[in-house]
Each structure stands twice: as C-alpha cells, then as structure tokens.
C-alpha cells in the first residue's frame, strides 16, 4: 500500500494535552493507521504514555488502533475517562 500524504487534525485531551503540550495539531502525514500515527507522535513528546490506557477516535467515533487514516480526518487521543 502506497503511503499518500494526508492533511489531518489531531486532538489531545486531558493529561495528553500536557504530554504533547498542545490540544490540537494540524499536520500532513504519510502514515496509514492510528497506530503508526501514534508511534510518529511519540517522537515529539518526552514521556511515553501507556498506550493500553489510551483510546483513539476518528471523526468523533471510537476506533481500533489498526484503523486507516484518510485525508481530512480528525483524530483524537483520549486518556482514561475520569468524569463523575
């Protein structure tokens, strides 16, 4: 599968905003899956958040880590919920 360039928006919530020191990133990426994107993002933060506790979403839907990324997607990384 050919890696094409995609313009995406990445949202961080809760303590992940501190991990990546931002709540929103717009970038162009070559990666194909959420997992690949996450690994790429790890290069830009000092800590390594425990991946098993993080959920990912694409366009306001929870998705699995092997989900494909398309052009113009909004991707979110969510730490464990702590409402209530």
């Amino acid at each position, binding site marked *: 599968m050919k890696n094409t360039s995609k313009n995406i928006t990445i*949202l961080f*919530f*809760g*303590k992940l905003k*501190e991990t990546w020191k931002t709540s929103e990133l717009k970038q162009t990426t070559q990666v194909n899956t959420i997992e690949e994107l996450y690994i790429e993002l790890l290069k830009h933060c000092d800590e390594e958040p425990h991946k098993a506790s993080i*959920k990912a*979403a694409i366009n*306001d*839907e*929870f998705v699995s880590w092997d989900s494909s990324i398309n052009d113009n997607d909004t991707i*979110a990384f*969510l*730490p*464990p*919920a*702590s*409402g*209530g």
Partner: protein
Amino acid sequence: MFDISEDKINETELRKKTRDSACGGFVCFEGWVRDHNQGKAVQKLAYEAYPKLAIKEGNKIISQAMEKFAIKKAFCTHRVGLLEIGDMAVWVGVSAAHRDAAFKACRYILDEVKSRVPIWKNETWTDGESGWVEQE
C-alpha cells in the same frame, strides 16, 4: 438521554422529565464536588469533555440501560467547565415500575459514564497546584 452542560445542572427539570405516572420508583444519583479527594484538599475543579463523542457514548449507555433493565425513563447530565465545592458534577435519574430495576439501572449508568464517557477531571488543590485526576 445523556447531555453535558456548561451551566449548573438543573436537577428539578431533570427530575420532572424522568417522572412518569406509570412508574412507582425513581432513583437518582448526584455527584458533588468534594472538599477533598484522594487525600488532598480540593479548592475547585474543572471537567473537560470531548463533547460530540461524550454525548454519543453517553446516549449509547442510556440505550443499553433501557435494554438491560425494566425501566421507563433515564436521564444523565454531566457538568463541564469550572466547578466550585458543592457544585453538582453529574446527575443520573431513572424511573421504573419497580424499585429494583431503578436502583440497578441508575448504578449501571453512573458506572459506565465514569469509565466510558470521554470526560476528564482537573483538580486545583488548596496548595495552588493542579493536575489531571486518574480514575479511582
């Protein structure tokens, strides 16, 4: 129905919506901002949500509760933004013909909302420090 609210939760309104003359029992849970948490004195706290996904997931939980338990109506509202001590952070209400279903469904909705709905708590302690709170 699940909702998030930036304003004070109007529990009177919610209770009115949950009532039903065919129902004998109504159980509600109110979660308030405590003056302490996990051993620290809390001054105030903020809840942040991923609004669209929170509402979707919250409504999924309500639907699941309606299927699992013999209940008539169920509502849950979670506050977001800055809250003071004693403010209501979450409200869950369920009406049912019988008390057992009402108690179980209310507890179910609360537990699922806490673990599944994308909302996060950020506490400011009386020492001036603040931080994101992990689920207990």
